[in-house]
């Protein structure tokens, strides 16, 4: 379960940051970029609390 959560979190972080490089090079539209960032945010927040240590 923890491993799955970590994989989902990493996918969320990747969706947050990777599309911006494609926007910079003109390979991706701004709208697609912000939609991916939003999806990345949801993936991060539904998975990260399961594996990030509380203290």
């Amino acid at each position, binding site marked *: 379960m923890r491993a799955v959560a970590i994989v989902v979190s990493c996918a969320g972080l990747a969706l*947050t940051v990777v599309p911006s490089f494609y*926007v*910079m090079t003109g390979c991706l539209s701004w709208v697609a*970029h*912000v939609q991916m*960032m939003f999806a990345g945010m949801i993936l991060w927040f539904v998975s990260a*609390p399961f594996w990030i*240590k509380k*203290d």
Partner: protein
Amino acid sequence: MSAEETSKLAERLDALYEFDREPVTGDKLHGVWSFLGMYAGEHVAGTEFIIGPLFVVHGVTASDLFLGLIVGNLLAVLSWAFVCAPIAVKTRLTLYWHLRSICGPYLTYLYSIVNALGFCMLAGSMISVAATAVGLPFNMPMPALSDRYPNSISWVLVVFFVGAVVTTLAILGFEKISRFSKVCVPWMVLVFVAAGIAVLPQLGCTSLGDFWRVAQEKIWSGTVVPGQTKFTFWHVVFFAWFCNLAMHIGMSDITILRYAKKWQYGFTSAAGMYLGHFIAWIASGILCAAAMGSVSPGPIAYMGAGAAGAICVVIAGWTTANPTLYRSGLALQVATPNWKRWKVTLVAGIVTTSAACFPALVMKFLDFVALYGLVLMPMGGVIFADYWLFPRFGLVSNHAEKFKTLFSIPAAVAWIGSLAVVFWLPMEIFFKGLPAWFITVILYTLLSAVEQKRRREKEAVS
């Protein structure tokens, strides 16, 4: 004030901090990863959305910014590692109990009140930051760089809404929010980076190879916005070094670093400095330039990252404001006998929210941060002198504790005196911290030597 009243005040003050009166025991020490996470979390906050843009409007050049941040952040890390951490791991006491043993309960109380007011202003700026994002869907007019007073009714309403939420959550307790903020940190760092990169094409940068040229010509071009002062390399160095002056040289962080296994854990502050005070400041500066000089955090984050950016601003402001407000309530509680914690936090929340209505708090944020650190820092000089210099000069350390003094006059004179001298010095506030530290250490050592000599003479006569 009668003797009975004074002892009651001291008892109330002690009761607040009773739970961490003893030095931390060996089984409660934390590993290096805890400190890396803590510092990264603490220094990637809503304030980063303000500071980066303010460097742009103050006309910093690209080379001054990058070199200045590298040097200034390095000095900050060294201050944590060599000034704060060694005392923290040797005494393993909170700042409160350490100061109390040196200065007595009353001066410590005064320090707590000043600290609480600073916390209120800091939390207020965070509420303002969050309000700029919350107001986006309502087309709220954003405060401009030159605004000092509330610019619209909708701004005041949104600030009060955000302030009410933050205060309510602070009353309910900040521990869960503190945990939530740790979860947010890795995501927030990447939102800063992504937002900054995504707006680069608007500035004419379509590959990483173009970045330095665009940075010099379009972002940190050295052009000062009218009405602002020009910032140089030295402004950047001293601001990056002293923006957390109260925490490293001012010793606030001995409360945190007392849990470290080794003093070298002070170097973990580099995580916060180079993620928050380097990458995040650069990213928010890029956003400001792409927004044609706008410094409102909500709109510039939305421009770079859409809804995720606006949510990041709200979370960054909210997670910083909550513990800050909670701490200010804790510090103020001693001044309000028989008041419950919730009532004190509510009053602190009202003060904080009222302050947040004034955009000056955000637009003059660099000056405020410098002032806040400068006012609290001298107590760090007092602790430094008491711990390192007194044994070498044959003076008694922890004087107040050993002689049951309620108010240390040498510490009070060193604190107020050093501030009076540096405020008189004709230099900008960002540079006053360094002379203030030396003046405090010298004044406190000399005055303590006189006081202790007199005490010895009096004891010899009696």
